[in-house]
């Protein structure tokens, strides 16, 4: 790696840590209902919201009611996004006259956004109307993120409260997340992005003249629109000419802001944040990349603050950093090493003052190697899934890093809220394993971890694992599944494994060569995203409810302290063994085989 690569990556991590603390403390205040300037200004809006929706904010919910509220709210979101796509042709703000989206693609996209996955089988600029993007996708970007954060806050209350049956009010937690955290940050981000050239307009696409017209071959069609074949049965082509270029527009900045901040990741345009109108400059790239981990990192410290022991939050944040930092550097160095096939072709892949060099296939010049690799690692560590370079074209090792980060179960930062409640589940498993070693009842944050909590925690870990592997197995053993593969050899298997990891872990990024817009992938992907989200949320809330009922046990001599370096190392060990080793055999068939056979 070049000196600038190292400096750039280190600077990203430094800025992240600097911003995590103030934001984390602020968020703790929001969820505990502490007074602030923002709360004074937006308080009337919050109260108006409750009045309009018939919500009694002081009413407390049991874990069952809380889970039901999450499910009902998400189901309403799925229906809304599905219907908006199916009827977009008759709705306003469709200047490109896009027709209704196909039923299977609408189903996939609706679940994708309501589960905070944001897997992208649609091409934004060629499929979706401005109204669908705004009222469907932008809305779910906000509320699915806020719902994840709400579930986390409910789990934290499980630790904090004792001898009670309730864990808070979902409507209040969700509303506060949108109103005081996500919306103000998104407004700030939107303007910064527009200042860099991200489009924000309701005009129809502009057409500009090309300096040099482009001629290309296109299949010749007969009067009925069918391709003409020659005597050998090959399609006949004819020359076509493009004298102009479309410049797509739309309310992009307002959506991209929340897409990055809420670990959503579904792009406004097909190429996501590789698109120069979605991410035009080094400054916009810095902002968008930082936004991926900003809230997930800060939430760790929110957690510490809310449970009344900040060291607990730092311990989890440090554990996440210790896994992510080396993998980020590994990805960058694999990409910086370049494509070995190019060496003999007279191509210069060496980094210098004049070029970043490295494997530039699928990457943008302004982002270079370090800017692309940091993004690739962060977007898969967090369950963001947006991309500023095409992961399918990464080197074998470089592409394995994002895949592995998803397979850790989206707990190394993970989605906003969902990543940290996943991490807390791993912390529970860790104290349990430690308890077995010394023969004591495990405790975490003053609560005894017993059979019920362990059953639920094991369920959370196993369900996602099983979904990925069963899904991949079905896809590679059916025609409908293998038909989508675009690259030959082990790389083709990687495309499928990556997709199912992304579905089940609600990440949303892709090895995009895989043609996922088929009835098979749209359907199975939608189902997996649904289970990957809610079959985790339900047991997490069950744990929250069970913990809230328990008495607080004061720490004694035999209590394992959970803020020490020893615990951090132990926690990482459990994550690596449970999360990653389970995938070793599958990784051996994909990226590892590819690396060894090139």
């Amino acid at each position: 790696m070049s000196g600038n690569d190292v400096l750039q990556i280190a600077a990203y991590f430094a800025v992240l840590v600097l911003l995590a603390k103030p934001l984390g403390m602020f968020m703790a205040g929001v969820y505990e209902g502490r007074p602030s300037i923002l709360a004074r200004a937006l308080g009337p809006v919050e109260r108006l919201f409750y009045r309009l929706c018939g919500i009694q904010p002081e009413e407390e919910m049991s874990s069952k009611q809380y889970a039901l509220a999450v499910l009902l709210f998400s189901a309403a979101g799925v229906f809304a996004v599905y219907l908006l796509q199916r009827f977009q042709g008759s709705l306003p703000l469709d200047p490109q006259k896009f027709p209704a989206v196909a039923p299977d693609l609408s189903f996939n996209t609706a679940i994708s956004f309501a589960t905070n996955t944001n897997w992208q089988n649609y091409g934004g600029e060629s499929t979706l109307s401005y109204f669908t993007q705004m009222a469907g996708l932008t809305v779910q970007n906000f509320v699915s993120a806020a719902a994840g954060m709400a579930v986390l806050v409910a789990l934290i209350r499980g630790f904090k409260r004792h001898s009670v049956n309730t864990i808070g009010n979902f409507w209040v937690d969700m509303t506060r997340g949108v109103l005081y955290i996500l919306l103000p940050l998104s407004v700030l981000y939107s303007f910064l992005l527009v200042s860099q050239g991200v489009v924000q307009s309701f005009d129809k696409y502009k057409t500009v003249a090309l300096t040099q017209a482009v001629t290309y071959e296109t299949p010749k069609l007969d009067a009925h629109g069918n391709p003409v074949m020659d005597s050998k049965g090959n399609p006949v082509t004819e020359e076509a000419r493009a004298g102009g270029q479309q410049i797509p527009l739309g309310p992009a900045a307002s959506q991209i802001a929340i897409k990055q901040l809420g670990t959503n990741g579904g792009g406004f345009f097909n190429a996501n944040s590789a698109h120069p109108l979605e991410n035009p400059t080094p400054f916009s790239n810095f902002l968008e990349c930082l936004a991926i981990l900003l809230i997930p990192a800060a939430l760790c410290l929110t957690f510490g603050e809310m449970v009344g022991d900040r060291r607990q939050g730092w311990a989890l944040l440090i554990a996440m950093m210790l896994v992510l930092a080396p993998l980020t550097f590994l990805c960058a160095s694999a990409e910086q090493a370049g494509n070995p096939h190019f060496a003999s072709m007279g191509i210069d892949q060496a980094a210098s003052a004049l070029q970043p060099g490295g494997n530039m296939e699928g990457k943008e010049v302004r982002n270079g190697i370090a800017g692309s690799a940091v993004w690739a690692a962060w977007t898969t560590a967090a369950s963001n899934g947006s991309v500023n370079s095409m992961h399918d074209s990464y080197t074998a090792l470089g592409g394995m890093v994002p895949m592995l980060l998803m397979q850790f179960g989206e707990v190394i930062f993970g989605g906003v809220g969902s990543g940290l409640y996943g991490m807390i589940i791993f912390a529970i498993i860790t104290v349990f394993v430690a308890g077995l070693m010394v023969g004591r009842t495990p405790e975490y944050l003053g609560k005894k971890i017993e059979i019920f909590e362990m059953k639920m925690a094991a369920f959370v870990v196993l369900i996602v694992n099983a979904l990925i592997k069963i899904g991949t197995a079905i896809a590679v053993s059916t025609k409908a599944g293998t038909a989508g593969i675009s690259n030959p050899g082990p790389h083709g298997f990687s495309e499928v494994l990556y997709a199912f990891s992304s579905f089940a872990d609600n990440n949303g990024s892709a090895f995009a060569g895989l043609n996922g817009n088929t009835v098979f992938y749209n359907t199975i992907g939608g189902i997996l995203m649904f289970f990957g989200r809610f079959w985790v949320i339900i047991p997490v809330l069950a744990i929250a409810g069970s913990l809230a009922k328990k008495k607080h046990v004061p720490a004694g001599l035999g209590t394992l302290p959970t803020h020490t370096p020893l615990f951090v190392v132990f926690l990482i060990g459990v994550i690596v063994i449970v999360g990653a080793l389970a995938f070793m055999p599958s990784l051996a068939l994909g990226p590892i085989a590819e690396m060894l056979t090139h």
Partner: protein
Amino acid sequence: MSIKMIKNAVMSLVVLSVLTGIIYPLAITWISQAVFPVRANGSIIMKEGKPVGSALVGQQFGGPGYFWGRLSATAPYPYNGGLSSGSNLGPNNPALLREVRSRIDALQAAGPGNHYPIPVDLVTSSGSGLDPYITPAAALYQAGRVARARGLDKAKVLALISANTAGRFMGIFGEPAVNVLKLNLALDEMKK
């Protein structure tokens, strides 16, 4: 499942949709259009009253007299602004190596006698298929060819390259990059 909870769910979705799906994007658009009229509308470059491109979207260039940009994998023709896309070819894919080889041949045919190693960004496809930039190395590689084809002093071409190069953010983030469309438009201006 209580009816009240269903009503709460539907109503909160409706109210939040109005707030985050309509009021928020409309307000951002309204202010952006007033404060950043050019940038909010695609950074269109005007020449003699006509739009000739976007400063942020690349165009396809060929022939010895223009600087070439990245390869573009958009369908059905390169730099199709209506459908951004990368090649998604894996590093060992023979199709990738064929693409690269044919680009090398094209570059050498356009500028015979240039035996410097070719900067990698000049033979690979960008992620969006619309990358407006090349590296300074890729611009320098082509400078001699362009100067010869246009009968220009090479120093003048080099000066244009540096005038159209954007730097890193804070000297750390991102990479220096040369805007191909702006550079070529500036070359065409000089001819007059």
